[in-house]
């Protein structure tokens, strides 16, 4: 027997959640963004598009547990994180959302993103970021929360400009 079907209500809730997370990141609303994560969160941005990548063997761009995720956010909140001071102007489009049931009553959502970033910390330059995110979501006190998020950039293994914002 295959996994249980995802209801329209769940699909709609996940979609809305992804939109909200994207907007909080775009608008540098750091504390609100951090509040979306569980205590056992893992935030992973591999440095390769290879699906076999193992963060215990291979270098990643980001492989944060909750403690490091909090450090990442605190840096941004100091006002001295010069690579994001002032924060880049950003808008991201989320599309091609696929939602499935996972173990432990969790949901897995895959989505494509296209993010335009205007970096305004030196010369004003636009960078484009494209990839696919995989969120694993869990209900905590009735609210969807991020247990893990993996972001695979199409150019993960290429030279990247600063990625000090929240992707």
């Amino acid at each position: 027997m295959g996994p249980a079907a995802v209801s329209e209500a769940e699909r709609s809730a996940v979609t809305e959640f992804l939109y909200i997370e994207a907007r909080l990141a775009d608008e540098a609303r750091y504390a609100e963004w951090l509040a979306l994560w569980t205590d056992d969160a893992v935030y992973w941005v591999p440095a390769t598009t290879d699906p076999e990548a193992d963060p215990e063997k291979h270098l990643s761009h980001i492989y944060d547990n909750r403690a490091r995720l909090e450090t990442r956010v605190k840096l941004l909140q100091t006002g001295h994180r010069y690579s994001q001071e002032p924060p880049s102007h950003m808008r991201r489009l989320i599309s091609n959302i696929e939602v499935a049931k996972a173990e432990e009553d969790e949901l897995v959502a895959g989505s494509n993103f296209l993010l335009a970033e205007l970096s305004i910390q030196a010369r004003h330059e636009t960078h484009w970021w494209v990839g696919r995110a995989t969120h694993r979501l869990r209900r905590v006190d009735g609210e969807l929360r991020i247990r893990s998020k993996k972001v695979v950039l199409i150019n993960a293994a290429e030279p990247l400009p600063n990625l000090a914002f929240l992707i």
Partner: protein
Amino acid sequence: MSLYTDPRIFADEMERIFHRGWVFVGHESEIPGPGDFVTRTLGTQPVLMVRGSEGGVSVFLNRCAHRGTMVCPAAQGNARTFACPYHGWTYGLGGELLGVPYPGGYASFDKSAHGLPRVPRLSSYRGFVFASLCPRGPSLGEHLGAATRLIDRSCDLSPEGEIELSAGWVKHQCAANWKMLPENDSDGYHLGFVHLALFKTIRTQYRRVVGDEKTIRAVVRDWGHGHIEIDWSPGYEGPFEWLGGASGSGVDDYVAALERRDGAEAARRRIVEGPAHALIFPNLFLGETNVAIVQPVSVEECVHWHTPIFLKGAPQFNSRLLRMSEAGMGPASFLMPDDLIVARRNQAGLQASLAEWIELSRGLNREYVDAEGRGVSHVTDETTNRALWRHYRQVMVEA
């Protein structure tokens, strides 16, 4: 300030520094088995570093001997042969030309004269492979001089005396002149300013260099030939501060292995001092628990590559080394993005060319030459910058 902004000077640097001189290509541990390869650049020229079927390491220009097509577009991999996609010329792992389709078009054809072009000179030190595109000039040993000790300092932390670069590279794009990377990598003055966010957020081993000027004990050193070092270790008070502390049975086993090899005193010194923080001119940065490459792209663009060093015989540190590498270096790390945005602003400011010179006199009042002939000064002094530029001038004006 045309040294940072003039494309003609950039072209001259590629010729004099990156083609005539010794340039770091990669580490032998990146290509452990026959047919393993990585592609790199020497300056802006594409090269291919390959492990041959007999186990030797070769570096070839990554261009077909026929019409110049790039033979291998992959960053790394394993191959039995390299085939040019244009007309099907095929090469073996030793660069030998194996096959030319439709040989009837040549009256006589000497395949042995049409292999993948080898770099004129290739040499290595403790697994670090260097190449020169010029058949003549100082040997690698002469180029490195006493700075081999900096490489030793990192390698000897391995119980087997070898580091391994097997975690893959992160490449960080920098919209500034390439020289700003070695200048910043060897600058001990900027930490408390560029990295203020980090010091306000967490406790790091670098905190000892952001206090009162008189209490800072770390130093900078000029090893000659453009090789320059920041040595944090005079400020370290115990073992493994460079690793953010370490304890447990795995660490005890590691220390015991070093003691068996080197004796207690030398082992203690190694675990207190930690790996080197040094620039091997022009493009190899020994970034403590990382190795980094400075890749020039154009006069206003370069790439900073990095990978953690794994200590052969001490895999218990690998996970920590990976996480430290991600914390310190790369586009999403807690240090380098701030360095590179400042480099970008530096590059932008230098467009104001009416002001011709920058100021690099810091520490002239207190630097000294030690018993081994190395220039030494307070860690915030520009002794390293001057050493880099002194060597640069010599290389750029010599016949």
